[in-house]
């Protein structure tokens, strides 16, 4: 179970990025699940999360994408797991 969950479906750019960034900033370490509904939001959240040292796994769920952002302890970079997309 992720520490935080963000439902960013239907929100305009850059709101999915801002909400995801806030969720990452609110945890010391662990994972944040972000649900988005456009490829643009998926790409933007992924780029932001990687710039913050998180690993990203993307999984298509019907029309939506579930992104799992994993943050290492002390902000250490996390190895990227095998992405499904």
């Amino acid at each position, binding site marked *: 179970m992720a520490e935080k969950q963000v439902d960013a479906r239907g929100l305009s750019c850059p709101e999915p990025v801002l909400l995801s*960034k806030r969720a990452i900033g609110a945890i010391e370490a662990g994972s944040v699940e972000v649900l988005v509904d*456009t490829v643009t939001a998926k790409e933007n959240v992924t780029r932001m999360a990687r710039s913050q040292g998180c690993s990203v796994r993307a999984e298509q769920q019907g029309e939506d994408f579930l992104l799992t952002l994993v943050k290492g302890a002390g902000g250490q970079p996390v190895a990227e797991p095998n992405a499904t997309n």
Partner: protein
Amino acid sequence: MRSETVTLWDRLRCLFSSRAGIVIVGLLIGGGAVLLQKLGNPPNMGICVACFERDTAGALGLHRAAAVQYIRPELIGFVLGALAAALLFREFRPRCGSAPIARFFLGIFAMIGALVFLGCPWRALLRLAGGDGNAVVGLVGLAAGVSVGAWFLRSGYTLGRSRAMPVLGGSLLPLFMLLLLVLLVARVSFKEGHAIFFSAKGPGAMHAPLAVSLGVGLLIGFLAQRSRFCTMGAIRDAVLIRDFHLLSGIGALVLAALAGNLLVRGFRAGFAGMPIAHSAQLWNFSGMVLAGLCFALAGGCPGRQLFLAGEGDGDAAVFVCGMLVGAGFAHNFFLAAVPDKFVEGVLRVGGPGPYGKIAVGLGLAFCLALGWTAREKGGVEI
């Protein structure tokens, strides 16, 4: 065989979402603009989304400024090119419902701000690459307006969620563009002296051959949909989250246009009497503050709104409709600025008239009220 195809497809996907992709699109827009200008588009206006929407609004009779009436094929190309990319890469998603009336008015005021400056962000960059120093003032205004919008976003500003809608709903703007293409190619005039209007002189009469304009528009629309090119987003992301990905596209656009202008000897540095521009600096600045704030609150520059509309975003299509109506208002009510001109060798500085100045004030008041009231509690800590 199948796996090889997928790999190539994935590589294409990755290329255009990468920094190289955004740079390629910036180079293409800058180079394409110089080419279109060389082939007949107005000076320092190889591509200008706001001006081209203003010309198209004029052709449809939404205003009667005879010098700026032409259905610009580039606009049609932007939307249909983006539609083609979205369909090909399975990103066409019909959606709408995120405060459409607010977006409509943001479109109106964005157009008024752009026509007080005399150009959209793309044209501001092209004017800069052509040596027009007034563009620097406009770009500073744009950055200021976008920064205010970024502050609202940080404070929790949102126009709410869109939701899925039927395919026809998401296809309306592309279908409207197809209709415009028919009207343009057939040169339809519904009645003698009535719309569709085509300027006989002035900027509206200056245009590259239809096929070239349409072709360049389609190519830019296709690639910009893939790369998410957005001038407003470039400034907003740099200010808000220190992300310079989109900004590299802007740099590429300016460099390509500058190189092209030097090559075709289209570069002339100065402030006074520059092509289709004025040197009333307070209004160059204020017009673009308003436009930048509108773009930031609506989530995209005028070009990006067209590309989004092409991929089924009905809210972006509403913003585009607002810009078309705004162009009508800007010329019917004398809100748009007039360019500098030399009368018997003496410079007459242009700029907006009193109603244009009032409209900029009204627009700023509207944006500030919207930005302040459409916030969810808590905001976003960055």
